[in-house]
């Protein structure tokens, strides 16, 4: 095994509400939703209209800018609603599921025996190409590209993130099959990155055709952006692909069984969940059966994903396409008298301006309050402490704000996406909306490059 890459700068936010390591099968949900907003740079073109019947694996919509990649339905049933937002933008395609799932047949095959074109064809037909994304920009991968490498982060360091070993348990063959599929797609290396602190599951370590790398350290050590920056950094013109472990298993199952089996394991987490556990679910399910009678009283925020990068959904909202976690935390809609002046034994901060710094092992129930107003940048060195890439984060953010394309390029915009800036956003004293600035910059680059 290769040497351990030590990530020193970062932050593990001590949240309460970690999921107990027990996997239950979730009660099936009646409704499933697939959300175009889970994909970046999307101009959605609908394929399945309201009232139409679909099978698991039937295409629901595609991106006009990338018409060969279609997004599949996780279940069979009837399209009951196409929810639209401002300017008729499609937000959700909702399917009422059949009690017995019918699958589109894509045919079984052993990926090793297929050519690259045949593999690509199968992934595109089934819609499972949607699991493969690229850096820069974090958009869906282009089948015509030959990426210089493919990255798989086999561990997740986000707050309350699921334990990947538990999640991939018993899926060794399909994981390997998925890896075999990916190895058809690149002439470069497949980097499989594991956490050096915990002996990872055999499913991961026994994988063949990959380069196993070890990482150590706090969040964001598990983010692919950081791993790419350390192992095979992106220069102008480079393309690197990345896929999540559970999605590789799903790809493996496609070749084994010839169907889109949308099941995956997610963690239900957060301080407001009564019984935080792992659940086997189908992608896109409404979280209603999971959280009903399983959350505390009060005004709550339901998040598909983790607290740093997840999306806000309702208590009946749908699990995001790439998410393997649901987090429920309290809303912070209250006034606090002289909150900034209190000693702050119970106020979590990454810095040391509150007395909570004296209680390093405490776990916190954090809410969605902003804890202050937005200001111009004053404090320096703050982002750098939680941003482990060889990039000057504040300078890059400022370059994006002034829309200086050339400077953004020089400062490393190709290597980052918004999730890499989630911790800087969390710690920011000036309460700057860093992630949305980064996305704006990436979209600007996309426009400029096309």
């Amino acid at each position, binding site marked *: 095994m290769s040497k351990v890459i030590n990530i020193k700068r970062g932050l593990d*936010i001590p949240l309460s509400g970690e999921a107990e390591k027990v996997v239950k099968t979730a009660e099936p949900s009646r409704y499933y939703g697939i959300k175009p907003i889970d994909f970046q740079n999307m101009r959605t073109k609908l394929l399945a209209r309201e009232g139409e019947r679909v099978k698991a694996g039937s295409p629901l919509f595609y991106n006009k800018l990338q018409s060969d990649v279609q997004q599949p339905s996780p279940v069979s049933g009837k399209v009951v609603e196409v929810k639209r937002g401002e300017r008729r933008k499609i937000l959700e395609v909702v399917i009422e599921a059949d009690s017995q799932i019918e699958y589109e047949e894509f045919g079984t095959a052993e990926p090793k025996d297929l050519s690259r074109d045949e593999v690509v064809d199968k992934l595109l037909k089934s819609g499972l190409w949607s699991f493969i994304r690229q850096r820069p920009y974090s958009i869906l991968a282009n089948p015509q590209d030959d990426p210089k490498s493919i990255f798989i982060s086999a561990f997740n360091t986000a707050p309350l993130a699921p334990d990947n070993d538990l999640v991939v348990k018993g899926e060794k063959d399909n994981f390997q099959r998925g890896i075999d599929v990916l190895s058809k797609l690149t002439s470069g290396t497949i980097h499989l990155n594991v956490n050096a602190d915990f002996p990872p599951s055999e499913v991961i370590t026994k994988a063949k055709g990959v380069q196993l790398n070890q990482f150590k350290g706090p969040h964001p050590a598990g983010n692919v952006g950081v791993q790419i920056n350390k192992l095979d950094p992106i*220069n102008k013109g480079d393309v690197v692909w990345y896929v999540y472990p559970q999605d590789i298993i799903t790809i493996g199952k496609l070749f084994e069984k010839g169907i889109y089996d949308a099941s995956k394991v997610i963690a239900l987490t957060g301080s407001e969940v009564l019984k935080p556990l792992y659940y086997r679910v189908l992608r896109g399910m409404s979280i209603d059966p999971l959280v009903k009678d399983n959350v505390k009283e009060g005004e709550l*925020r339901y*998040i598909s994903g983790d*607290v*740093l*990068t997840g999306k*806000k959904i309702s208590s009946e909202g749908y699990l995001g396409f790439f998410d393997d976690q649901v987090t429920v*935390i309290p*809303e912070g*809609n*209250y*006034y*606090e*008298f*002289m*909150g*900034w*002046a209190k000693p702050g034994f119970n*106020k*979590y*901060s*990454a*810095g*040391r*301006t*509150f007395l909570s710094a004296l209680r390093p092992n405490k776990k916190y129930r954090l*809410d*969605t*309050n*902003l*804890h*202050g*107003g937005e*200001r*111009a*940048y*004053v*404090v*320096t*060195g703050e982002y*750098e402490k939680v941003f482990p890439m*060889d*990039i*000057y984060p504040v300078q890059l953010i400022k370059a994006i704000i002034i829309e200086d394309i050339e400077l953004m390029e*020089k*400062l*490393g915009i190709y290597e980052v996406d*918004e999730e890499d800036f*989630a911790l800087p*956003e*969390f*710690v*920011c*004293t*000036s*309460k700057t*909306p*860093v992630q*949305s600035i980064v996305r704006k910059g990436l979209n600007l680059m996309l426009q400029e490059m096309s």
Partner: protein
Amino acid sequence: MKALRRYIDKIKPHFEKGGKYEKLQSTFEAFETLLFVPNKVTTQGTHIRDSVDMKRTMSIVVFALVPALLFGIWNAGYQEMLATNPQMQATIPELFWEGLKLVLPIIVVSYVTGLAIEFIFAQVRGHEVNEGFLVSGMLIPLVLPVDIPLWMVATGTAFAVIFGKEVFGGTGMNILNPALTARAFLFFAYPAYMSGNEVWIHGLMNGEGVVDGFSGATPLSMAAEGNVQNLPTVNEMFMGLIPGSIGETSVIAILIGALILLITGVGSWRIMLSTVVGALVMGFLLNIFAVNPFMEIPAWQHLIMGGFAFGAVFMATDPVSGAQTKRGKYIYGFLIGFLAILIRVVNPAYPEGVMLAILLMNVFAPLIDHYVVESNIKKRLKRAPSSS
């Protein structure tokens, strides 16, 4: 607190757009958020946020200034007693009270002038009032002589806030440290009130009842005159029992403040450390080439003379006007220390070299950062395969 909250909610509509007092909206908001952390929740990006905000950060700096302030108030009374009636056996509270009568008006004038201007600019720009002046408003009195006329405090503060900060876009955008801008403005506009031997102690300027032979000179001006044999003892200078600007004399009080800044992580240890190193290096160089008594002063003694300690701890570390990159901070701090001692010793017209050194490096900080960032860019370009 609920009653207070209800009252605020009741009067709030008057200050909002279309209300009776909409012109005071920024002012109202400033006071409202001072009393209550707002109920705003996250709408995009991370769902949770760190508890820290600008108010917390700035109030830590003000807190760190308190030891220097309290000592300065007492010392104002103590120095006056030394000058006028050294036989008097005044108690600490008595001296403190005498000092408070001199210092408090300066603080009030500084805050009132600065905040009024801040409120007006915030309202015109439609911004929230920034907390930056909470610190500047305290720094300005601490770097002034106790006998300064109050109208000068107001003029200097107004100049610093308007031309040092607001014309650049307000807190966070300024190039120069506002408090030092105020001091530099007054220093060059009214030198008679900002330098010499008679401004540091109350009453010396009109010469009433001063004890014969009492000079009131600061150690720095003594040294500049070559009068090093009469310098106060190291102990006196370290404790701060000497004439000087209100908050700068006591090294021990400043060190307590430095400790607060370092423990909370609000002040940059890189800048403090490199400033001290820069000063020591220059001090040693001067010792080696010494041709006059001032140059012979041991390098380390420069650290406890004049405004050096105060400047290194509270002024050089201003994150807005200082260098922002890690490596830049080392360079920036080193040059401040280096130049401060050079100016102090070699240019007799400006014994207080720290102020000028910091202002000069404020101007150069963006350039230093530029080169640090540029080297990162070059590294990135070099990494790319030679495709160009």
